[in-house]
């Protein structure tokens, strides 16, 4: 992440967002969605820029992390576990469609799936922590505070998106 903070090749961010766009265009063929995939993709962009500006404003209050450029790179790379989880989930939806049964194979699959999901979530939290650390240059407790405040904003926002049938789990 230290090297990523020094990047200036915006094509990398373009590639990551292209992968996300391909996902939303593809998932529309697997499952009916209430909204057009481009609108869902637009909200991914809103989530991304919202996360960046939330963190940037906090850093400005502490007078650290002056340049905005590292934020774009760090938070785009921090979306990689999210991208993997959504792709994995949509492939499993086709290969092993839910609901799962309370049989031995169902329980084994559940253990494996939850292990993978928790691993990706842990990786996501680590990348998010490193993104905030290298972008804002703040220390542990300040980053913890950002995390708590961010989660406090994220929860009602996620509920709103769920009620609007945009996302069941927000793509951040």
């Amino acid at each position, binding site marked *: 992440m230290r090297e990523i903070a020094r990047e200036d090749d915006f094509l990398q961010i373009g590639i990551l967002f292209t992968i996300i766009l391909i996902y939303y265009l593809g998932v529309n063929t697997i499952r009916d969605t209430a909204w057009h995939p481009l609108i869902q993709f637009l909200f991914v962009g809103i989530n991304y820029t919202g996360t960046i500006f939330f963190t940037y404003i906090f850093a400005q209050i502490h007078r650290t992390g002056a340049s905005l450029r590292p934020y774009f790179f760090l938070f785009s790379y921090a979306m990689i576990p999210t991208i993997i989880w959504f792709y994995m989930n949509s492939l499993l939806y086709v290969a092993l469609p839910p609901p799962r049964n309370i049989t031995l194979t169902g329980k084994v699959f559940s253990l494996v*799936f939850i292990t993978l999901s928790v691993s990706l979530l842990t*990786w996501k939290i680590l990348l998010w922590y490193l993104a905030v650390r290298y972008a804002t240059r703040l220390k542990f407790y300040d980053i913890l505070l950002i995390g708590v405040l961010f989660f406090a904003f994220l929860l009602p926002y996620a509920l709103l998106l769920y009620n609007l049938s945009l996302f069941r789990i927000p793509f951040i």
Partner: protein
Amino acid sequence: MNNAATHNPKNWRSRMDDILSLEPNDLMFQPLTTAYKLVTRRLKVWPFLYIIPLSFAAAALLYATFGSSVVKLTSLLQYGF
């Protein structure tokens, strides 16, 4: 760092710039700071070596606590994309 890297002043300077670019974390309570550095030292090198077994342990603990409801949770997550 190998010998070539340590004997090259440019690499050494760049490495020192990397190390000194951020103020080290201080959790204001020495045992906590020591624990933090111990955990992060492991996670910097090969994080999945620790993340995957810990995640499996968490999943097993969930199963031990909630039993077959874990299967319903999996179905819920599978619809979550």
